[in-house]
């Protein structure tokens, strides 16, 4: 079998194939965007939830925890923490972290949040829990 194999053909296929699959990806993303409002509960986002997300970010919570499975794997999943601990339990947990940690154990820092901030964080976590994430996580332990 002696087929020709030319660089120019390989190059054209590279360009054509890349553009083709990128357009297909854009088409799928476009459809995703039309479907998202039904799943991401954006209608429920309040300024308090937005504040909670900001606190989540500026304290780098993702550096230890996962949220919907994304992040670090050092500490528990928080997308469903409100299911495990409830609103008050979650707040109490964050509040009660000892400043110098617990000897020998993984410890969460003490962030000295105000009550208002704690409420915002819990509101954000509850919002994340309300997102339709295709039944993930498999159970309440995350």
């Amino acid at each position, binding site marked *: *079998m*002696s*087929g020709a*194999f030319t660089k120019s*053909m*390989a190059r054209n296929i590279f360009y054509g194939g890349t553009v*083709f699959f990128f357009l297909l990806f854009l088409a799928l993303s476009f459809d995703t965007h039309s479907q998202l409002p039904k799943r991401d509960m954006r209608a429920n986002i309040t300024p308090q939830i937005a504040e909670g997300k900001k606190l989540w970010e500026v304290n780098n919570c993702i550096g230890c925890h996962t949220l919907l499975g994304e992040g670090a794997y050092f500490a528990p999943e928080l997308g469903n923490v409100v299911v495990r601990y409830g609103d008050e339990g979650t707040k109490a947990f964050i509040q009660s972290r000892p400043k110098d940690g617990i000897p020998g154990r993984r410890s969460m820092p003490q962030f000295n949040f105000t009550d208002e901030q704690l409420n915002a964080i819990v509101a954000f976590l509850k919002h994340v829990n309300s997102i339709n994430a295709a039944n993930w996580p498999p159970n309440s332990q995350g």
Partner: protein
Amino acid sequence: MCAMTTAALIPPETPQKRLPGDLAIWFFILAEMLAFAVFFASYAFARARNVEMFNLYQQTLDRNAGALNTFLLITGSWFVVRAVQAAHRNDQKAIPRNILLGFLCGGGFLVVKVFEYAAKFGAGISMSTNTFYMFYISLTFFHFMHVILGMVILTILWVQARKGVYGSHDAHGLESGAAYWHMVDLLWIILFPLVYVMR
């Protein structure tokens, strides 16, 4: 695939077994067919777990439109074969003419498909409606995009053919494009019975 088997079956008078078209396009074709094959297998897997639902919604598909489209694509492939044959016997007029006819068949396919989609989308059906429609839309749309890509390739071939690039001396690019077009056809010939007919 077809072209490869044909090549293997050519009687000994041809000096050497030859792969028509560029090896690079065959890599691309193999990769594409692999993607479709995994998609088809996924369809079979999902269907096996929910046969009644798949059968129920399969009946909502427009089989006549599908059959018409099958006819259009096979005809299109036939024209493209004629274009390659014309190149081998150096019939410069027949090459672009047959490519154009192949292109028109592809265009016809798209028109039929757009009507079919309009009916489905108009009824509020989307990829998120249920697993059957997810596969129906994903597979046919993925294929639809391939028809468009095939038509882009035919357009390039047509422009080149009109410039007289192809002939008995060189049909390399033409054969490469033709092989891709046949793949688009072949995929539909699997897709149509699988999604529209088989139960």
